[in-house]
């Protein structure tokens, strides 16, 4: 039966471009299509999220993850095209659109760090009409660089300044989106899943920003292209490498050394990056001055080629990413840890003669995690994942500006798990499963004031057996009654078959194994309902407001006191979260100001009992100010305020026996004081707030570029409580006032 359904959908996808609608797209319309690529003039790197508008019209678009844009339905004639992007001088060029023709342009933008003789328009916005982009944040490298960091620039720290994203402490880069647990966030690197995206127990993100081109972050309501998670998607695209010239660089921070090399290849380019920790002690402040013998590394490569003799409209890329984290004590009475990711993939992007764009990906993503107890009392735990994913996505743009998106994904997944809990109970699983899913989305862009994006994700064959959703409908609508106001609403159904067996009571967790939902449990499902309003007050001043409600069924909850093999390790519980988020941005040549506020609630329903998850922050406010003084000087200030996180309070103390089997009278020996805990997460810590500051200076002595700077974290040394000691009640604080410096050189 699944094969019949599979056949139908494949046929639908293949035939979709040949429907009468598409066959008559140009006939008698008097319009043409403008499409093209936007790249960096110095490196040839595709520019993501660059704005492209046709001057004097309401027509425009933004580049996608590959620097590609399409503007359909352009009346024939001569136009001025304005292309702009943050960090680049805007460009204006003349284009001629022919009737019933596709015009392709290739545009390169010059970075603002390079002095040019003529002044061009800076930062002009393109107005993509009716974008149904609820819950999406597009973050470029330029935006990433302006956020102050504790040690070095980090993808996940940037996410945490977005409204709706919370964290449980300075120590962990792990993030929680709109009341969802940490494992409900999918991280994709060039289309491949990254299962453990952290270094050093979660202090850093594993993906070095140096290798990134940009990222799309969906806080919710993500389109049918994406599946497999309940809360968020982080889709990261790496750089292609310099297509014009060879270059290399190195950066030294207090914790890591990293380097990159890039250069042109035949019809393409190559990028190599590597990072290695060299001074673990600089991380001690993250762990209350506890020295942990960290050793972590990562390296990546990307080779891409546009073989014009083979197919001038295709681009091929081979990429790889490998990371490892080890904690080796060299002491047999202490446990050792080893974690790692291995990702390799092949991507093929093609712009067809028809206004059709396809992206095909085949990737392998491996993950391994192991706790080796040696002769300590720690528990042996290990987890391995092998994931082979094939994905074929396409977008077909009609002359009416409507867009049909479609795709097929199949995943072969194998995993092994061997864990033992505190009470000696073991949980051993080994499975390999296959899934096949597909999606169809139709975007109505034909109306002036209304945009509709409706789609469906079909799960033909699933990894889990606990009744995952077979169909996941998604719908979002935009209504623009006035040019400066957009009203948006959306609803979507989501299911998640792969989860981590992490214990939510762990503030820092070193081992978070991935498993397919066990067969005795139902597969988690969520509905996301969202609505919002966007005010474009001026070209550079924007206010956005979004509200959401997210009921979740069949969440996985760990049984922390499994005492016997008869008891289940996990159980299903329900949950819900809701909130409202506001984001204000102001951008000019000199200033970038971003003010984000969120008010949110998250609950778990465990039988009759309602519990607040540890990451529930009622109020969160982030204020980011970036000032470019000129001559390469730049500074950023970030102030963060959050309601204190929930914690489990003490209701009493008692004296307990410290039983020693070799001491016959240990029952009547001196007792040990112990804590009696109250309701889980029933109280809240004091409010969290912190001010961070970064200053950077860029110097350019051709061919060398030098970047150095310093960051001050927790400028006024706020004592934000991380947790309090269970034995003494003493408080453990998050990051104190600390200064870090960095130096980067590139040639």
């Amino acid at each position, binding site marked *: 039966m699944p094969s019949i359904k599979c056949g139908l959908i494949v046929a639908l996808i293949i035939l979709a471009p040949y429907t009468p609608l598409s066959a008559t797209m140009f006939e008698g319309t008097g319009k043409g299509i403008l499409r093209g690529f936007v790249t960096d003039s110095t490196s040839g790197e595709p520019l993501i999220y660059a704005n492209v508008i046709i001057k004097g019209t309401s027509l425009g678009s933004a580049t996608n993850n590959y620097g590609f844009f399409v503007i359909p339905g352009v009346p024939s004639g001569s136009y001025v095209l304005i292309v702009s992007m943050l960090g680049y001088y805007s460009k204006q060029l003349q284009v001629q659109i022919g009737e019933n023709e596709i015009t392709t342009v290739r545009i390169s933008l010059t970075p603002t760090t390079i002095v040019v003789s003529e002044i061009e328009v800076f930062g002009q916005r393109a107005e993509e009409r009716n974008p149904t982009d609820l819950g999406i944040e597009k973050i470029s490298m330029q935006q990433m660089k302006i956020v102050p960091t504790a040690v070095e620039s980090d993808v996940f720290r940037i996410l945490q300044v977005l409204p709706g994203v919370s964290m449980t402490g300075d120590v962990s880069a792990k993030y929680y989106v709109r009341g969802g647990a940490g494992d409900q966030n999918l991280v994709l690197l060039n289309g491949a899943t990254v299962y453990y995206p952290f270094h050093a*127990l979660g202090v850093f993100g594993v993906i070095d920003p140096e290798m990134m081109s940009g990222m799309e972050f969906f806080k919710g309501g993500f389109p049918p292209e994406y599946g497999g998670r309940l809360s968020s998607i982080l889709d990261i695209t790496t750089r292609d490498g310099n297509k014009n010239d060879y270059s290399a660089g190195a950066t030294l921070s207090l914790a890591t050394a990293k380097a990159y090399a890039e250069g042109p290849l035949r019809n393409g380019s190559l990028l190599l990056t590597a990072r290695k920790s060299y001074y673990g002690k600089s991380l001690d402040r993250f*762990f209350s001055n506890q020295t942990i013998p960290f050793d972590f590394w990562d390296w990546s490569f990307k080779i891409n080629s546009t073989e014009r003799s083979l197919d001038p409209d295709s681009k091929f890329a081979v990429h790889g990413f490998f990371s490892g984290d080890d904690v080796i004590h*060299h*002491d*047999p*009475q202490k*446990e050792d*840890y080893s974690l790692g990711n291995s990702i390799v993939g092949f991507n093929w992007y093609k712009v067809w003669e028809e206004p059709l764009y396809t992206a095909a990906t085949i990737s392998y993503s491996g993950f391994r995690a192991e*706790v080796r107890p040696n*002769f*300590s*009392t*720690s528990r042996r735990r290990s987890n391995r994942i092998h994931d082979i994913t094939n994905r074929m996505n396409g977008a077909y743009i009609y002359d009416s500006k409507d867009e049909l998106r479609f795709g097929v994904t199949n995943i072969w997944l194998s995993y092994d798990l061997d864990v033992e*809990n*505190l*009470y*000696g109970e073991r949980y051993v699983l080994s499975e390999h499963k296959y899934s096949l899913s597909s999606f169809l989305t139709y975007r109505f862009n034909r109306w002036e004031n209304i945009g509709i994006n409706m789609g469906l994700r079909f799960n033909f064959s699933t990894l889990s057996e606990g009744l995952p959703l077979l169909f996941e409908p998604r719908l979002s609508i935009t209504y623009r009654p006035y040019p400066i106001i957009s009203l948006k609403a959306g609803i979507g159904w989501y299911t998640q078959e792969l989860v981590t067996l992490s214990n939510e*009571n762990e503030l*820092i*967790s*070193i081992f978070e194994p991935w498993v397919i939902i066990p067969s005795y449990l139902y597969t988690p499902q969520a509905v996301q309902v969202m609505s919002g309003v966007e005010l474009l007050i001026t070209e550079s001043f924007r206010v956005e407001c979004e509200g959401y409600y997210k009921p979740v069924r069949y969440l996985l909850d760990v049984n*922390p*006191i499994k005492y*016997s*093999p008869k008891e289940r390790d996990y159980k299903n519980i329900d949950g819900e979260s809701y909130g409202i988020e506001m984001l204000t941005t102001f951008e000019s040549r000199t200033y970038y100001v971003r003010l984000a506020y969120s008010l949110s609630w998250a609950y778990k329903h465990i039988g009759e009992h309602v519990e607040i998850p540890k990451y529930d922050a009622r109020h969160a406010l982030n204020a980011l100010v970036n000032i470019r003084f000129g001559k390469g000087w730049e500074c950023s200030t970030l*102030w963060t305020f959050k309601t204190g996180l929930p*914690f*489990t*309070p*003490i*209701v*009493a*103390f*008692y*004296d*307990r*026996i410290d*039983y020693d*089997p*070799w001491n016959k*009278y240990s*029952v009547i020996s*001196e*007792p040990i004081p*112990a*804590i*009696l805990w*109250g309701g*889980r997460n029933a*109280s809240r810590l004091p409010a969290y*707030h912190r*001010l961070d500051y970064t200053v950077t200076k860029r110097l350019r002595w051709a061919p060398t570029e030098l970047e150095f700077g310093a960051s001050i974290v927790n*400028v*006024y040394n*706020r*004592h934000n409580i991380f947790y309090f000691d*269970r034995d*003494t*009640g*003493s408080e453990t604080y998050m990051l104190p006032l600390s200064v870090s410096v960095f130096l980067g050189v590139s040639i």
Partner: protein
Amino acid sequence: MSRIIPVVTAFLSFAWLSACDQPFSPKTEFENLPVLQSVVETNFLETSTWVFVVLGTTYDVLGFNPSNNSIDPTVQGAVVTIRVKDNTYEMFETSTPREDTSRYSNRLRHYRKGLKIRPGDTLYVEATLPDGRHVTASTRMPQRIAYDTNYDITGGLSTFINAYNYGPVFQFFWNEPHGERHVYFMKITLLYQRKIDDETTMMMVEEVPLRIVERNGTKEPLYPVYTFEPKFEFTFEAFDWVMTKIGEGVEKKSDITVLWYSLSIVEFDVHLSRYYASTKGSLDSYSVRLDEFIYSNVHGGIGIFGSSYLNLYELPIDPAYAKKFGYRAP
């Protein structure tokens, strides 16, 4: 710029002020509960054993450190009974001097009773506090362990073994109780006599480590800790290490007579196993877990009522093995 400076100054001033510690208490409304704690111990001799019960209540302290408590929370005047099979015994109240008087200066009050308890017996404890509160708990005594080994050592233990089949380790293993995970402790000690002079001979013991490990470039013994697995593995190297160690500094090796190895296995019942694991165990050193609840099997209050069984065996030593080190065998 002139406008920015006052704003920034005001903000930083506010921020500096708010950076100070705010009054914060991790405590909530106090909950007064009875606390009962007892571990019934018996051994292979199955003779009469003292059962001790410590009865107290929860308490609060000024601040958050319970070590600062100086008011003894134990309860006097309670009625405590133990039921074994169909017999119910009332325990009597007594006290013993404390080893550490830094917290409480008075004697440690408890309830006790001498009882003959057999493996597999189920014991029920009931305590009624003077204020009328009532707590109960039960435990089932572990059974005697019948262990086996990977190598036949009935003729005397030695490391003169072709380790091809099972490797250079002695494995002691047994069946665990069906459906329950119990905590086990194991200890092997070498008993030997050392002749000090013509008239004096001293009886001495030395514990056998699990294995010898290298740490910071030096070889060190590694002794067994608790396990949920019904087995322990001791390396041949560990036995040789002990045999060598007892002769260190002894000029005339024949002054030493090695007698036998004493093998002790302690098994906890299921409740004491869980209690022990929840207080001593950890999944790893770095994960930070909060509000981990200590196991309790006491109804009407908190605490632990568990039992443990000490198995004791003698392992003979191969005389040729003793002679290899220059020692005498019995």
